[in-house]
């Protein structure tokens, strides 16, 4: 089985380190993956706010493309697993899949639309998050076998964000998700137990409702800091962007200096697997984690 | 001669075993011939249809018709004999409940013809020749009876007065039936001339069946070492005995083979297959769905097992999805 990689728009721009590290880690773990040809934007939250049915159509085009790419029409292979690393894309695709399954009229309308551009959607595609793939398909144990540099001595706050976890309970409990913490533990670092794991970072509010966005991120950063986190890991390009890029501004508003490295979880895994920093896109971060060099020295 | 009651024998769609069973009466046959006057028996004697047509209506005392009805000719003959006879007896499983030919009701006519004339491995038929109702050649025409879509029991075509069950009827039961008919005291219409109690009643292995048991799966007799003393069901070998009319002297059981149900159901039962299904499946050991399905899988052809002799005469008669023509 080959996973189909659906990057989404963010991973090509602000989330570039995510894409780089994800591909590097999957390559290191020898997980076959192929980018979805000619994918389009998932529609995100904004499209849903303008026209829901068209938003479903937009997302369904990707699902249909994935089905045909994995030869569902040819040999009926039902194993179409789309890996969507961006939480927003992930949720939009899942929501589309579920709603189209549940509501007949919508499904009919969307499939009719897809047919006009020569595509068909069978509902066979399964949407996966890389966390889900690593945790359930690959398994922590086999990841552990690849670890070259255990991340000893750092305290990591896992930030799950909203849309990977909610509203559907998919692979992690909605109220207290644990997959990332178990992963962190396996990598040798110390997971931090904190109550804001799934509290919203504000999403696009940082750009539109500035004060609200800043305050939400301030809460997350200060609480992680208070509890002694060395870094926060995220699973979503927007969360990462919000938490990282506004830190200086938040510091200037509050008068408290906050410098918290915000990594993608794939970057952390990559470090433990001994992949060079450059390949993981760590040089693209705003805030450097001082101990990375030290880690590389170990082993 | 003329005082002796006139009797006719005729065969429709059947294997000929029933005719054989009459010959099997052996010395008994002579007794029969002594008592009756056989006026029509195409298998054994040279009579023509026109001979029967020439007879006066109801002039035959009894017509024994075996085989089920599949062609227009058989229908025609059945009607003819009905017209000429006082009593019509369905003789044997095929006439009674459809018999083995009745299993063809699972398939469409076209399916059967295609297989028999084109696809059967033993057939070479390059020109795809098929029987035709009428064939003309050199100005002459030859006709064949039409092959119907549905296999019918005799009573689905004409009114039947009595039934003699069995594939084939045992000499004993045939003789007893004849005696009853000749005795002049005719039983009520539509009676099956055999005991109205299930086979288990007379089964020599009756005592060996335990009171508490359940089925964990069914074994196939051909692959099993069968205990010749023990009830087949108790050995988890499927046996139709409990749902089948007795009177056959447990011949199959005596040959260490389970009952397959040729005597048909008792008079209180409408559908023999459904009844044995109900009885056997109720006692499966399985509690959940998957287990149940697993046990049921050990009966590979349920339709052919439960309805081996009774499909055409069962409630549903035929696969209802098949085309009408």
């Amino acid at each position, binding site marked *: 089985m080959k996973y189909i990689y659906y990057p989404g728009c963010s991973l090509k721009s602000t989330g570039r380190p995510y894409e780089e590290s994800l591909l590097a880690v999957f390559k290191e773990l020898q997980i076959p993956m192929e980018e979805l040809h000619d994918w389009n934007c998932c529609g995100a939250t904004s499209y849903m706010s303008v026209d829901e049915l068209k938003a479903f159509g937009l997302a369904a085009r990707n699902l249909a493309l994935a089905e045909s790419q994995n030869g569902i029409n040819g040999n009926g292979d039902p194993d179409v697993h789309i890996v969507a690393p961006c939480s927003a894309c992930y949720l939009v695709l899942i929501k589309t899949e579920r709603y189209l399954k549940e509501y007949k009229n919508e499904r009919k309308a969307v499939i009719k639309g897809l047919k006009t551009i020569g595509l068909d959607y069978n509902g066979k595609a399964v949407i996966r998050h890389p966390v889900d793939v690593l945790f359930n398909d690959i398994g922590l144990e086999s990841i552990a076998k690849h670890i070259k540099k255990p991340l000893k001595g750092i305290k990591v706050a896992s930030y799950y964000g909203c849309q990977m976890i909610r509203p559907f309970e998919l692979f992690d409990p909605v109220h207290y998700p644990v997959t990332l913490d178990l992963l962190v533990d396996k990598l040798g670092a110390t997971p931090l137990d904190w109550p804001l794991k799934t509290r919203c970072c504000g999403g696009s509010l940082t750009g539109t409702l500035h004060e609200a966005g800043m305050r939400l991120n301030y809460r997350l950063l200060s609480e992680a800091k208070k509890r002694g986190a060395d870094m926060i890991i995220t699973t979503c390009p927007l969360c990462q962007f919000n938490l990282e890029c506004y830190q200086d501004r938040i510091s200037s508003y509050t008068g408290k200096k906050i410098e918290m490295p915000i990594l993608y979880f794939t970057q952390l895994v990559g470090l433990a697997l001994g992949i060079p920093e450059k390949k993981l896109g760590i040089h693209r971060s705003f805030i450097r984690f001082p101990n990375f060099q030290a880690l590389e020295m170990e082993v | 001669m003329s005082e002796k009651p006139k009797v006719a024998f005729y065969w429709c769609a059947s294997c000929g075993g029933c005719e054989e069973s009459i010959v099997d009466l052996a010395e008994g046959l002579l007794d029969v011939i002594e008592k009756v006057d056989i006026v029509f028996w195409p298998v054994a004697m040279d009579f023509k249809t026109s001979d029967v047509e020439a007879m006066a209506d109801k002039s035959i005392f009894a017509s024994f018709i075996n085989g089920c009805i599949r062609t227009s000719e058989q229908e025609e003959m059945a009607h003819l004999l009905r017209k000429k006879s006082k009593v019509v007896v369905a003789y044997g499983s095929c006439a009674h409940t459809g018999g083995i030919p009745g299993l063809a009701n699972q398939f469409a006519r076209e399916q059967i013809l295609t297989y028999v004339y084109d696809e059967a491995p033993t057939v070479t038929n390059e020109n795809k020749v098929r029987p035709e109702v009428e064939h003309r050649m050199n100005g002459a025409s030859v006709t064949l009876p039409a092959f119907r879509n549905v296999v019918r029991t005799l009573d*689905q075509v004409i009114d039947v007065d009595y039934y003699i069950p069995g594939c084939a009827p045992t000499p004993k039961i045939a003789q007893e039936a004849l005696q009853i008919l000749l005795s002049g005291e005719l039983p009520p219409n539509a009676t099956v001339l055999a005991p109205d109690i299930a086979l288990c009643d007379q089964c020599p292995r009756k005592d060996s069946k335990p009171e508490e048991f359940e089925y964990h799966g069914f074994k196939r007799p051909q692959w099993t070492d069968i205990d010749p003393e023990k009830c087949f069901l108790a050995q988890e070998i499927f046996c139709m005995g409990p749902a089948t009319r007795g009177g056959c002297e447990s011949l199959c059981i005596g040959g260490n083979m389970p009952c397959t149900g040729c005597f048909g159901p008792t008079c209180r039962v409408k*559908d023999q297959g*459904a009844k044995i299904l109900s009885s056997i499946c109720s006692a499966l050991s399985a509690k959940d769905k998957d287990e*149940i399905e697993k046990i049921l899988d050990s*009966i590979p052809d*349920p339709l052919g097992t439960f309805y081996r002799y009774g499909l055409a005469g069962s*409630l549903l008669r035929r696969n209802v999805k098949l085309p*009408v023509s």
Partner: protein
Amino acid sequence: MELKSQNDTWKPRIVAFFCNWCTYTAADLAGVSRIKHEPNVRVIRVMCSGRVDPQFVIDAFVKGADGVLIGGCHIGDCHYIDGNHKTIRRFAMLKRILKDMGIEDERFRLEWISASEGEKVKTVTNDMVEKLEKLGPLGLPKKFIAWDEEMNHLELEISKPKEEIEHV
């Protein structure tokens, strides 16, 4: 003798066998709670779903039912300890037979509906009606008549003089 206008538009007819303790009570509860549902189901009350003889099911189809529904207590809740276990076993086999005989899966249904599940009576009924409407009529009585139509040709042939038949 009957109402002649009844056949104008076809509506599925479902014969239902409901056990006295659970499903029949549930149907009563649906009534008391005025839970409206499709009027296609005709209920026959039996004491236990274990009373339902497969012959009844086949007979109902033969007499013209488009669907047959058996309702019993949930497994483990049978008023007679394990009558429903017997039902489910027979049901599984009968379903195979019916399938072989060309009767679709959706036409024969077994549902566990407990005495408190009035709502489920509605969902099951409506769902079954919807599925049967999609399948269309089973109409066995008519089918039997149609099957036997071919025999009328014979009577025609018999009634004609011999020579004529040969040239038809």
